Structures are given as C-alpha cells and as structure tokens.
C-alpha cells in the first residue's frame, strides 16, 4: 500500500513551518478570522431568511423573529418556511464540515470525505430499498431508513476495518469503507434501474435539499448533531497527537483506540443525521475543512472550529444562490454546493504554493 499521508503532511507543513504555531500574533490572526467568519455566518442566516422568490426586507425578518405577529403573512412565511430551512442549513452545514474535518484528520487522507465510511451509500441503499422494494412514498418515511442505513453500514465498515491485531487503523477503515460502499452502491443501482418510479424518487432524493421541511421534522436531528459536534470537538487535541502516528501519539499520552472509537461515533452521528435530514449534499464535507486547513495550519482545534462556522455559512450562501439563480423554480442546494464550491477550490489550490511531489 502506498502511503496516502504525505500530501496532507506536506500541505500543513507549508503553513505551520513558516510561522510558529503558538505565537500570540498567529493566534490573534486566527481569532480575528474566526470573529469575521461568525459575522459572515450571521449575515448569511439573515439573508437566508430574507431572500427568496418573494423578497422580504431584513427589518421585517428581524421583527418576525423578535415580535412575531401571526396575522402578518410575511411573518408567517419567515417562521414557517424560511426559519426551518435556515436552521436545517446551519445544522447540516456545521455537521458536514466538522465531519469532513474529523474524517480527514482521522484517515490522514486529503481525499477523504464523510462518505468514505459508507454513510451515504448506506443511507441511499436503505431509502432505495424503502421506495423500490417496500413501496413507501411519503418523504417523511425515508428519514428512519436513511438514518438506519447510514448507521448500519458504518458499523459494518468499522467491524470489517477492525479485523486483526492492529484494530481499526485509518487505512483499513478507508479500504473497508470503499469496498462496502461500492457494493451497496451497486445494489442501489440494481434496484433503481428496475423501474421508473424508484428512479423518479431517487433522482431527487440523491441531490440534497434543505427546503420543504417543517420545524417538527428538525427536532430529532438537532440533538443528534449537537452530540456529534461535541464529541468531535473534544477529540481535536487527541487528533493532533494522532497526526504524528499511532506510536508517537501513544507516547504523548493520547489514547489512540478511545479516540478512534469516539471519532467514528461522532462522524456517524454527524454524517448519518445530515444525510437523513437533507439527503446527500455533495462537496461541503470534503472542501470546507480542506480549505480551512490551508488557512489555519494543521491544528485540529482551529480546523474544526473554523469548519463549524464556515460550513454553515457556505451552505446557506449556496442555498440562497440556488433560490435566485433560476428565472423560475429553485436549484437544489446539493447541486449549487458543487457548482459554487468547485471553482473556489480550484482557484484556491492554484493560488497556493504547493510543493511538487
């Protein structure tokens, strides 16, 4: 097996090597950047409440939040349609970005995205099974299937990746995830290609969306994602040690196996819940932590905190863009994230000085 780590180490090195990590100046810059990102997120959230096929001015938006009047049609629109949508965007954006940061640190692989442990494949298969074989058609009915499928397949990946004396090493988990993920993708395609009605559902579900949910449909997702975020952020320090390799991490006092299990639990909660709530939204989990790391350097505490803020901001902007970009109708957020994110990522990677390999 050829090591996948060098790219990652190389990149972080260019940032960390030139500037001492613990200098007060650097931390000051990072804190300032974090405050700026938080402001951007707040702006994005307000814009997400205001922008749409019917534009609502920000004053009315704030009024509907703080002095709600159920006679006012605009207030109703904000509270019933746009608040759930914005909340879901924030929660899912944070979940995907932090989850991506965790999985990239965990597997030490810059190619890793939350789908790598089979979360998306498991959820897609379970939803396809529900639609194509069991014949369920109401959108709300998919949620438990998506959640269950994501969890079950991740468990299978973990079990397969933990065979042998060395336990669940990142490389074994990655390959196990790819192998099982591919197998289940195949089963999904086999079911989808059987009849038109399944394809009809799956082609829409397969492109993530955060629109059309009510607040009740969110309440189950928030605690799951909050737990996942908490566990993930608590693992940040240990992940820093793990980046040096298992032996050195152990010598430095990190509990390697405990950290691994906690990260897996966190990733499963985050990715599984977000795919169940919004469908598989492409690219956020891959791109945000990656780009963040170029700015913050390799310290996972910063990477994850920044991802937590920038992930939702990016997702909300993508969603807003999707609402206004077409003359009629909306472009689903799962499409916009990739269309918007790809040029940004390419532009950034071209600007960056990357050492030749």
């Amino acid at each position, binding site marked *: 097996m050829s090591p996948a780590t060098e790219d990652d180490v190389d990149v972080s090195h260019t940032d960390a090597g030139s500037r001492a990590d613990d200098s007060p100046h650097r931390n000051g810059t990072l804190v300032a950047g974090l405050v700026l990102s938080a402001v951007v997120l707040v702006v994005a959230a307000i814009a997400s409440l205001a922008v749409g096929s019917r534009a609502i001015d920000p004053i009315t938006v704030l009024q509907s939040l703080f002095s709600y009047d159920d006679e006012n049609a605009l207030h109703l629109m904000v509270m019933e349609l746009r608040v759930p949508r914005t909340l879901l965007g924030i929660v899912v954006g944070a979940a995907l970005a932090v989850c991506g940061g965790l999985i990239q640190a965990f597997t030490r692989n810059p*190619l890793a995205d939350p789908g790598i442990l089979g979360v998306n494949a498991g959820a897609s298969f379970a939803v396809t099974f529900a639609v194509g074989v069991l014949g369920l058609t109401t959108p709300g009915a998919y949620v438990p299937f998506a959640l269950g499928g994501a969890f079950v397949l991740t468990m299978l990946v973990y079990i397969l990746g933990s065979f*042998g004396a060395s336990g669940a090493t990142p490389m074994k988990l990655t390959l*196990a995830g790819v*192998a099982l993920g*591919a197998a289940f993708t*195949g089963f999904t395609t086999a079911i989808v290609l059987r009849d038109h009605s399944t394809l009809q559902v799956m*082609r829409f579900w397969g492109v993530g969306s955060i629109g059309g949910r009510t607040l009740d449909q969110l309440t189950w997702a928030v605690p799951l994602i909050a737990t996942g975020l908490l566990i993930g952020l608590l693992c940040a320090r240990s992940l820093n040690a793990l980046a040096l390799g298992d032996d050195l991490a152990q010598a430095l006092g990190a509990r390697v196996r405990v950290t691994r299990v906690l990260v897996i639990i966190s990733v499963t909660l985050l990715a599984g819940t977000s795919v169940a709530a919004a469908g598989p939204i492409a690219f956020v989990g891959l791109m945000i932590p990656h780009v963040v790391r170029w700015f913050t350097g390799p310290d996972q505490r910063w990477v994850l905190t920044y991802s937590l803020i920038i992930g939702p901001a990016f997702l909300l902007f993508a969603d807003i863009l999707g609402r206004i970009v077409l003359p009629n109708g909306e472009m689903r957020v799962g499409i*916009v994230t990739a269309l918007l994110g790809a040029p940004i990522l390419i532009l950034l990677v071209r600007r960056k000085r990357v050492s030749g*390999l």
Partner: protein
Amino acid sequence: MSIDQKPVTLPDTASAPTAFTPVDHGRRLFRIETSRIAALVSVRAFVVSIVLVVVIVAAGLASMTLGAYEVDFPSVIRAIVDPASDPDIRQVVFEWRLPRVLFAVLCGAALALAGGIFQSLTRNPLGSPDIIGFGIGAQFGVTLVMIVLELNTYMFKAAGALVGGLFTALLVYVLANKNTMSSFRLIIVGIGVSAGLGSLTSWILISVSVEKAMMAATWGAGSLASLGFDQLVPAAIVFAVVTLLSLPLARTLPVLEMGDDAATALGISPGRTRLAAMVFGVALVALVTAAAGPISFIALAAPQISQRLTRSNTPMGTVPVMLTGAALVVVSDAVAQLFAVPVGVVTVSVGGLYLAWLLAAQYARRT
C-alpha cells in the same frame, strides 16, 4: 530484443549461491535468464497469474452457456473449436457471446492497468482514473448527447463519451498545471471539476422526464450487451498499442512512488513519466468507456486486489493486475446475465464484496 532466444533457464539450486550474489528480496523469486535479458519473477505472482487465467477461461465459458438460448457446456466448446458444428449454436456462441466475453477480458484488463497507473501515480489507494475526471466527463457528455441533443445511437453515445471525457481530462490537466505538475494539485482540481460536472449531470437528470433520466442512468451503469466483433477489433488494436507503450511504466512508476528527488537521482524523469502515465491511463479508460460505458470500480479494486494476491509492494504491475481486472469483469458479466442487469452494477457489487472479503482475510491472518 529478438524473439529467437535461448529457452528460459531456471537457476540450479546447487550452483545458485555462487552464480549470483543472493539478495534477499523478501519473497520467493525465480530468475529468467537469456543471453540478452534477465528478469526476476515472483513465484507468487506467477502462480496467481496462472490461477487467474484458469478463472477467466472457466467463467468465460460458463458465461457463454447463459442467455435466452440455452447452450450446454460441451456444445459451447464444440462451437468455438469446430467451424463445422451446428450453425445455429455457432452463430449464438461464436458471433454473439464470444465477442462479449472477449470484450469483458479487454475492458477488465484495460481498466485495471489504468487503475494501477493512477494509484501508483497519486500514491493513493483511492486514486483512480476518475480523479482526472474522465468518467464524470464521459457521463456528462453522454447525458448531453442523449438527453439535450436527443441523439441516441451507439456512435453518438461513444463520441459523446469520448469528447466529454477527454475534454474534462484536458481541463483538469490544464487547471492543475502551473509551471510544474504536482500530484496533490491534480487530485484537488480533479475532485473539484468532477464534483461540478457531476452536479450539472444530476441537474439535467432531475429536470427531464423520468424516461429520459432512465436512459442516461442505464448507460451510466455500463453494459457489455450488444457488442460484436465489429467493435472488438478496433478496440483490441488500440488496447494492444497502448498497453505495449505503457509497459515501461511498470518499472518507472514504482520508482516515482519514492518521490521526485529520489526518482530523478535514479535516472527517471518525473515530469515525463507523469505525463506518459496520465496519457496512457486516460487512453485505456477512454477505450472502455466509449465501447461499454463506465464500468465502475474495476480500476479502483483490481490493483488493490492484485496487490494483495501477489503480496506486491506497489499497485502498479502489468500481467497480474490486468488478469485480475479481466477476471473480475468476466465473472461480473456472467453474474450480470443471470440477473439481467448491466455489468457495471455487478462489478461494483462483486468487486466491493470481494475486496471486503480479501481485506478481512488479510487482517485476520495478521493477528
């Protein structure tokens, strides 16, 4: 190198220590030595290759018995070797089913070699020709041709796949190239371009009628059905040429895996090797995609499976890797016929499950 060389000589065990300095390669090897060339062949790789050939032949013959028209095993063999056998059976077996099996061998070998090239090039087990966006580009091209331009013949689809794939690969290469080429930037740009094009394809698919979406989705699964000798001959010629040209990569790419500086010091030009690897890798994938659509996962799985079977230290290799890919596709195509699904659906499932089993077996042994 001339062909008429002395027969292969195996080292005499008694005189071996004195004949050449014994180097511990960490695995059992035997030495092929002629007056002009000498090579070390891993015993394990040799045995694995023989077994794979047997699997390919057996699965190929079995797959030729399957189909709407039942042909039993002896009749299949008779139809292939004896031109004077029952013309109906010969028509079915020789004209219809044999090219399909040969195509499966060819596609598997080409994809596996391409996968080995890209995994070695990117030093990443997840690196596959898809990192340069070819598969996604081809799918986008075909979706445009089939759904937006409404041209639905084999030639137009093949052309759409080729143009879309090559254009995307070129785009990725140009965007990733900035004075020097870095594998890292290539991967990131490839991911970006693929994600963008993939979402454009999904957008087209959710904006049209479900019937049209189904057509594109079916092509996207990859199928070997309805391919005949007419398509096989040109494909085989291109395959042979590209494979021969890429043979030197089996030696140079593993060296490049040690890094540009080490490779340069060992007399290998990193830039030229990398460009050659990408051109040949893309050519192999293009060949398969144009003929059969994107047969997924072989390029990813075959090098990894072969590496584990032969206990090699690089995903790049020629004969065992290509045979692994061929065996995977031939077996998958036989299964695909049993369940009446496109072969790409099965390659993903079979390849995935097999890779999973192989990993489990490997890990369990290391306890």
